[in-house]
């Protein structure tokens, strides 16, 4: 029999959560899949409301009702809506989202061609915005006096529409200073990373509002953590400020940080539509916008659902990460 050991001071008996470790991520995954199904119904329903369908769009201008009906039958668009929905979902699951109504190309090809450009744009913006929002949130949240100024800056900055940021940056960097081109037309087939000067304006106009928005959200979490007793204790023991930030504050910020990043990524994907269209950057965002304008339903459905899937996956991942990083749940 071992003698009872003295517990090290300050280490309270750790409470283990009653949920087995795998249950939470599985639940997050299941909820994400359910939400995605719901979103697919919404996307399909909204695009089905379009005036005019594939047949009317394809038919030659002088076609009669008879001819349009024949074409509709030929395209398989004359079935009941739920049948069309099921065949669409079936095609998506089998890797075949259909063909474009405008140019007859497979949707999968168009998406695969545009995906790297948007991934570079969103990834680059997130890489730039993530450390910035942590720093901004830390600055605003840990200010002991005069918190009004940083908070006002973050709130006001996050309220500015992305369009305004993009236009302002273009007017400054391209119009006034002439450093970068105002239009980011990328030659087809060329990876965007090879033309970094074209990425400057789009990435900055997406990263800047995101950093301010995320910083504002994190400021509250930082203020909460900084106010906890263990931080005050570490300060009183004379631990240098950077060590307090890294050891006593940062681990507690991982859960909110993961959630804020997921929300910010969703916002970035939505903002990509505006930024890509404004700068003529050939990504999925501008593809979505031009397909909506030309009523190219299969492309709209696929791109919108892909965006929603990425957003939901990000949120589910953040939930899983947040559950796993809370220092109070640590079992080691």
């Amino acid at each position, binding site marked *: 029999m071992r003698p009872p050991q003295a517990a090290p001071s300050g280490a309270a008996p750790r409470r283990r959560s009653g949920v087995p470790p795998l249950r939470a991520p599985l639940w997050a995954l299941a909820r994400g899949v359910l939400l995605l199904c719901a979103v697919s119904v919404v996307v399909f329903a909204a695009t089905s409301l379009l005036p005019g369908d594939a047949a009317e769009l394809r038919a030659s201008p002088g076609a009669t009702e008879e001819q349009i009906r024949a074409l509709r039958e030929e395209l398989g668009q004359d079935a009941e809506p739920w049948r069309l929905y099921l065949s669409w979902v079936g095609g998506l699951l089998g890797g075949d989202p259909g063909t474009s109504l405008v140019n007859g190309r497979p949707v999968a090809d168009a998406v695969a061609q545009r995906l790297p450009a948007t991934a570079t744009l969103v990834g680059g913006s997130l890489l730039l915005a993530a450390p910035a929002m942590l720093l901004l949130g830390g600055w605003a949240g840990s200010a002991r006096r005069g918190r009004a100024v940083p908070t006002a800056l973050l709130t006001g900055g996050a309220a500015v529409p992305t369009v305004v940021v993009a236009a302002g940056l273009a007017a400054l960097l391209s119009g006034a200073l002439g450093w970068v081109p105002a239009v980011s037309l990328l030659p087809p087939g060329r990876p965007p990373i090879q033309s970094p000067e074209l990425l400057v304006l789009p990435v900055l106009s997406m990263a800047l509002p995101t950093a301010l928005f995320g910083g504002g959200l994190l400021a509250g979490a930082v203020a909460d953590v900084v106010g906890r007793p263990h931080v005050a204790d570490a300060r009183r023991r004379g631990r240098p400020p950077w060590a307090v930030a890294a050891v006593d504050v940062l681990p507690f910020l991982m859960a909110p940080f993961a959630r804020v990043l997921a929300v910010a990524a969703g916002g970035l994907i*939505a903002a990509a539509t505006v930024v890509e269209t404004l700068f003529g950057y050939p990504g999925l965002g501008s593809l979505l916008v031009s397909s909506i304008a030309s009523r190219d339903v299969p492309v709209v459905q696929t791109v919108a659902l892909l965006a929603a899937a990425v957003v939901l996956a990000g949120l589910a991942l953040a939930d899983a990460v947040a559950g796993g990083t809370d220092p109070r749940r640590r079992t080691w």
Partner: protein
Amino acid sequence: MVSRILMFVLLAVVLATAALGGWVAPHDPTAPLGAPWRGAGPEHPLGTDALGRDVWSRVLAGGAGLISVSVLAALTASFVGVAGGLAAGWAGGALDRAATALTDLLLAVPSLLLALVVAVALPGHTAVVVATVCGGAPLTLRVVRDAVRSISGAGYVEAARCRGESGAAILVREVLPAMKGVVTADLGLRLVVALQIASALNVLGFGPSPPEPDWALMLRENMVGVAMNPWSVAAPAAALGLTTVLLALSVQLAADRDPVAPRWRRRNVHVGL
């Protein structure tokens, strides 16, 4: 205190200018008047755009449509959210759980994506309203629901219940007035987000069509001439940016004074686009 008054005065000036600017514009905002892309000068204080239209007149006239759509969208979202939050918070139980599940579903989709999908089927104004309601009403609902839950235990609500007043009467006469500040601050946030959605849709070409003066549309139209007349981009950008920033800061100043507001503001994670 001074900064608060200053902020509200500034906001009122900007909103009034946007609303009434169309009448005081020196020129017809849609009429070509001179050479294209002329710089700032005595006749055209902010120069001209691609078709030789007066940029200053277009900026003055270009905010009314944007702001009125956003106000309509924000009011609708707030109304739906407050009604739902009152019902969910007061009834509790199954209704509350259903409302929570529905808000989770709606919050998972970015509002702008939703607006774009809706814009496929419905014209611009409806898309802004629908997207603001779907993206904003769930947040309002949560805030109001939490506030109702905390207020419904208060003594004066208990007293009203003992007097035999109906649930609806208690909600309207006792609960709603107590959270006036929360609802107002939340309405301001909804307005900021509605402006962001409306300006994004207008830039993408799903709002007013080209000859119409509109701040967001001007940004896109004038982007090609930014080197020749920077004011043609900078002026509408400044107008739109100033409106949203002043609005957000006024909301924050108003919320700071309200004792209930700061507690929920921190959890308001899905605020923007």
